[in-house]
């Protein structure tokens, strides 16, 4: 059973202007897949549909075999705890320390203080930020900020990490660090879906590449390459 399945999904924000047009693909558990394409191709929309921030007009989206379109509003938080999301702009809280930024993910799930004190250092260790635990985001580099965001996404031990242009706002030297962390997480069994238009990264990683243009799937190749 695929972990993620898009079945003939179409989505339009404005009437008549399809952002996704009859998109169909499957992602198996433990896969690392790039979703590539130019800006406005519909990459971010795929992520928003998976986290149920948006709903498609046509088609169905299955997660672990179940349609997420039929999920009740009350159950959406549970879905989002199974799917960690990382954004290009990090979305960290400047007034909170690295520890507290990661702890937010656990606090909203009513985790106990003991759980928070045990899980947060673990995930920070996984992304290599143990020493920066009590620093504020302003004291971190772009790459480190993104690692904090990844650690926050990992706090719930999600089945999938969705990364929307995670290297878009970090310096080139830190890109490899972030990718290394994502690969490490993937090697531990977590599915990674990374939206990007950076061909160097895609070509270097040699993972499955789903290419989208004008809302349609143009190609879907394992170990594929991408030329923008």
């Amino acid at each position: 059973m695929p972990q993620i399945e898009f079945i003939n999904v179409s989505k339009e924000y404005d009437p008549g202007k399809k952002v996704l047009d009859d998109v169909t693909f499957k992602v198996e558990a433990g896969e690392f897949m790039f979703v590539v394409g130019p800006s406005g191709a519909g990459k971010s929309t795929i992520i928003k549909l998976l986290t149920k921030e948006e709903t498609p007009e046509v088609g169905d989206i299955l997660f672990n075999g179940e349609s997420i379109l039929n999920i009740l509003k009350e159950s959406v938080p549970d879905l989002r705890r199974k799917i960690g999301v990382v954004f290009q702009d990090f979305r960290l809280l400047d007034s909170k320390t690295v520890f507290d930024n990661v702890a937010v993910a656990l606090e909203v799930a009513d985790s106990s203080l003991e759980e928070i004190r045990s899980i947060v250092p673990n995930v920070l260790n996984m992304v290599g930020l143990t020493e920066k635990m009590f620093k504020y985001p302003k004291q971190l580099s772009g790459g480190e900020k993104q690692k904090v965001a990844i650690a926050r996404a990992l706090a719930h031990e999600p089945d999938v990490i969705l990364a929307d242009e995670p290297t878009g706002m970090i310096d080139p030297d830190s890109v490899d660090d972030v990718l290394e962390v994502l690969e490490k997480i993937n090697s531990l069994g977590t599915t990674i879906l990374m939206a990007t238009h950076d061909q160097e990264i895609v070509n270097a990683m040699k993972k499955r590449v789903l290419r989208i243009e004008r809302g349609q799937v143009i190609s879907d190749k394992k170990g594929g390459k991408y030329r923008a």
Partner: protein
Amino acid sequence: MPKSWSIFMSNVKKEKLLSVSNILIMTVTFVLLGLLINIVVFSQTALRYLEDQAQVTVFFKDDFTEDKISAMKDGLSKDKRVSALVYVSKEDALRIFREINKDEPVLLESVSASILPASLEVRAGNISNLKPLAEELKIVDGVEEVRYFEDVVSRFKFWSTIVYIVGTLLVLIFLVVSYSVVIAALRTTINSKGVEFEIMKIVGASDDYVKLPLIHQGVFFGLFSSFIASVIMILLGVGVTLANIFPKGLGLGFLPGIFMPPWVFSIILSFILLLSGFLLGYLGSSVAIKKYLNY
């Protein structure tokens, strides 16, 4: 303490000045509301006291015999508008006159029962019936004169109505202001925490996790300010009780015949204010969440 309360407390601490000004405005609203209710109840009670005292006094001509007066009294006692009748004969009138003027022997010597008129004191259950009764009695044969204190009662009624209308308007205005204040305060909180709410949503916060602290914030504003107003009202009630302004107690218009000590009434009023505070805070915060939280 539930997590949502600790989150709301940190919201309040972050916006201290705004929180204090909100509480002040809402306190003024509830004090005004409490005072208005007090004024209405005090004036109703005072009116009832006046009504109890208010009467039509019918003075009879000398040739109108006691038999005729007695017949008239019997007739009046069947009138539903009449609550009490007291006949004051010429002799009773002289006794009262002597009692009042006991220190003036010269005056007492010159007055005998024959020159004082017999009279009938007519009390009405409803003060508004006094005037028609007086008008009817004036034209009865044998009636010399009819007196009643129309002006005092009607003026009091007029001014208490004016106070009631103005007070109600003021309370309504302040209720609208307070409601807007709750919404504005929460709008500020929602705007300043927009990114945080978005992050919470991404990482799997439930609706209640985000909304409850905001609801608590609104309810806290309402309850805290109505609590201050309640304390003021209880102090006022105790003061009125100690001053013995209403010896029989306060009468409520919708509970005829029931009187209660002012301090008891002030406690009931406090509950009303606290309930109003809760509802105002709850409704204000619910509307603000619906309007401004794009969650």
